């Protein structure tokens, strides 16, 4: 009885044991040959109106993927490497939605990117249908994180936070210099971005003792800024605050210089040109001393400096999009590592509970509330001696504010 009982037991043990070992061994054998890869969707507009910025984002994402892989991939998944699946959003929200469908059908674990707010809005919405994690890289509109989408995360600061910080920083910088500026002229593009910003400034700044002399709107594209310069010249403001895209800001600053309009400072917010090294390189004299409240990497972080050097050594221009997308990729890797899985729900949970510090931005550890990283903040930059430096807050600064300028 006893013997028989044992033999049955042994047989059962062997059967289940062999089957179990086979199940366990199969992936191990696979792992031993080639580690599995994790597909990561990178969505950027590399053609169309936002091509320049989308190109920067792509460079950042590529380098982020390379970094993750160089660090040994995702250890919780046996050193699985990231494989970038790139999709061109063609600067168009509808195209972005189609591309998200494509990426999803190719089995990506998450999508990073979007750049422009409309693209980010549409793409994250499309991804939410598959509960596919989506990390917004730059898109600033507040709506992105106000729709209750559980899959959508924004590592960088949004519009309200940027403008609020800009106003606070302006007051602090002006106070620190002995309040040299009292009068302001706002110049803004007449779309949602520029008008919204100007309206907020016009409401807030008078509360802090500034006088808004005029708020000049202009269309995009603008052919001519002579009249704007003329008006500014006649108003003689202490500060000029432009909120426009790249082409118009460059045109405005060139015209101001040509018309010999001088102010104690040019203080931009989320500006297309003032945080773009191309502008600084092409028109060093014009760009010099322009301040901007915008995204920028933390110049105190050696990893950020190293990445910038690597990008520039490859003959590519440096831009904050690169630092943001690079950081987003590391953030995603950290989340997948902690999730120990590429299951959408688990990755979303891991992102939501993320306290990631290994990024390049001046933010501190990540803390997501309803998809927004609450630790994110813009910094004040100023063009000094042909480079873009951080001047405020002081813990990140690599230069002192050159303000007020001599008139």
């Amino acid at each position: 009885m006893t013997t028989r009982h044992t033999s049955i037991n042994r047989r059962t043990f062997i059967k289940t044991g062999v089957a179990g070992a086979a199940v366990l061994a199969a992936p191990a054998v696979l792992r031993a040959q080639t580690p599995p890869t994790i597909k990561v969707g990178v969505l950027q507009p590399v053609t169309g109106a936002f091509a320049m910025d989308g190109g920067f984002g792509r460079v950042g994402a590529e380098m982020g993927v390379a970094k993750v892989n160089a660090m040994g991939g995702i250890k919780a998944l046996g050193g699985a490497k990231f494989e970038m699946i790139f999709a061109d959003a063609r600067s168009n929200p509808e195209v972005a939605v189609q591309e998200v469908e494509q990426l999803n059908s190719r089995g990506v674990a998450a999508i990073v990117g979007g750049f422009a707010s409309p693209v980010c809005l549409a793409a994250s919405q499309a991804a939410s249908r598959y509960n596919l994690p989506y990390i917004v890289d730059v898109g600033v509109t507040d709506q992105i994180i106000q729709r209750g989408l559980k899959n959508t995360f924004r590592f960088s600061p949004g519009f309200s936070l940027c403008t609020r910080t800009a106003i606070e920083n302006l007051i602090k910088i002006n106070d620190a210099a002995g309040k040299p500026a009292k009068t302001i002229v706002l110049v803004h593009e007449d779309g949602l971005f520029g008008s919204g910003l100007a309206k907020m400034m016009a409401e807030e700044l008078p509360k802090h003792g500034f006088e808004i002399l005029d708020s000049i709107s202009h269309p995009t594209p603008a052919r001519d800024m002579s009249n704007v310069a003329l008006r500014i010249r006649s108003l003689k403001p202490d500060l000029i605050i432009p909120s426009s895209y790249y082409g118009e800001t460059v045109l405005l600053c060139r015209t101001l210089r040509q018309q010999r309009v001088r102010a104690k400072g040019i203080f931009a917010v989320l500006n297309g040109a003032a945080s773009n090294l191309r502008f600084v390189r092409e028109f060093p004299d014009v760009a010099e001393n322009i301040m901007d409240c915008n995204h920028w990497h933390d110049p105190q972080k050696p990893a950020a400096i190293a990445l910038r050097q690597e990008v520039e050594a490859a003959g590519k221009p440096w831009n904050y999009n690169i630092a943001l997308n690079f950081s987003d990729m590391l953030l995603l890797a950290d989340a997948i590592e902690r999730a120990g899985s590429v299951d959408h729900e688990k990755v979303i949970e891991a992102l939501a509970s993320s306290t990631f510090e290994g990024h390049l931005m001046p933010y501190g550890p990540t803390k997501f509330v309803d998809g927004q990283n609450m630790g994110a903040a813009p910094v004040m930059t100023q063009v000094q001696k042909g480079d873009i430096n951080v001047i405020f807050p002081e813990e990140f600064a690599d230069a002192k504010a050159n303000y007020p300028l001599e008139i």
Partner: protein
Amino acid sequence: MYSMSIVVEAILTGMLTGSVYALVALGLTLVYGVLHIINFSHGAMLAAAMFAVLMLNQVFGLDPYVQIPILVPVLFVAGYAIQRFIIGPGSHGKDENILMITLGISIVIENVLLAIFRSDIRSINTDYSFNVFEVGPFIFSQARVFGLIGSVVTAVVLWIFLARSDTGKAIRAVSKEKLGASLVGINVNHVYATTFGIGFACLAIAACLLLPTFYVNPSIGGTFVLVAFTVVVLGGMGSIVGAMMGGLIIGVVESLSGLFLGESLGQIGIFLTFIAVLLFRPAGLFGAKA
């Protein structure tokens, strides 16, 4: 509201801007006057010409003004070839086909530019980009004053060419009476292509005069051509003097309405003028009575 000197300066800078509109409109009005078609590829070709200026500047270091004698013949040949070998044969004598072909050409040109140069905004920095002429209380950008001079000279040369030269006479003959012109032995296809070539050559000059003060991207053409259409209608379709005067008037209207109504609303001035001209003087200021 504004001091007199600012208003006067706004008028004068408006004329400087307007002179470039006039130059872009010159080619458009000439092609309309002779071929009786609206050339939708005009804007795209302006963008192409501006990129050519940019490249010659960046690769060979040629000053934009020095490039005028190089680019004018190149664009003339391009325009001639496009009309002679693409638009002419492709239109089968129907005006609506010509419209579609020029539209198609503009799409091709813009996308080729997009593929080569991407949609980056580019500009060049010349020594004189920031130089100004100071006249009393006024400050004028040197590059833009050169632009005005260049435009006026081009218009005068073109006007003399059309009035005096044999080719000019042939062009005028074709524009007046196509059948009659071919009966007296004028090669109408050759005249069409030449006119198209001259239209593009005007763009080459416009591109060289624009780049020292303006930026370029593949969709830049639309920025100027929409206004140029207004200029053509205002001045009278087919009239060279009309294009010149129309350009200056539109420039001043835009500048003043921009000054008083704001830059965004200032664009209204241009289109109100456009509507007013269509209502009260449909043939334009200098156009022949239809």
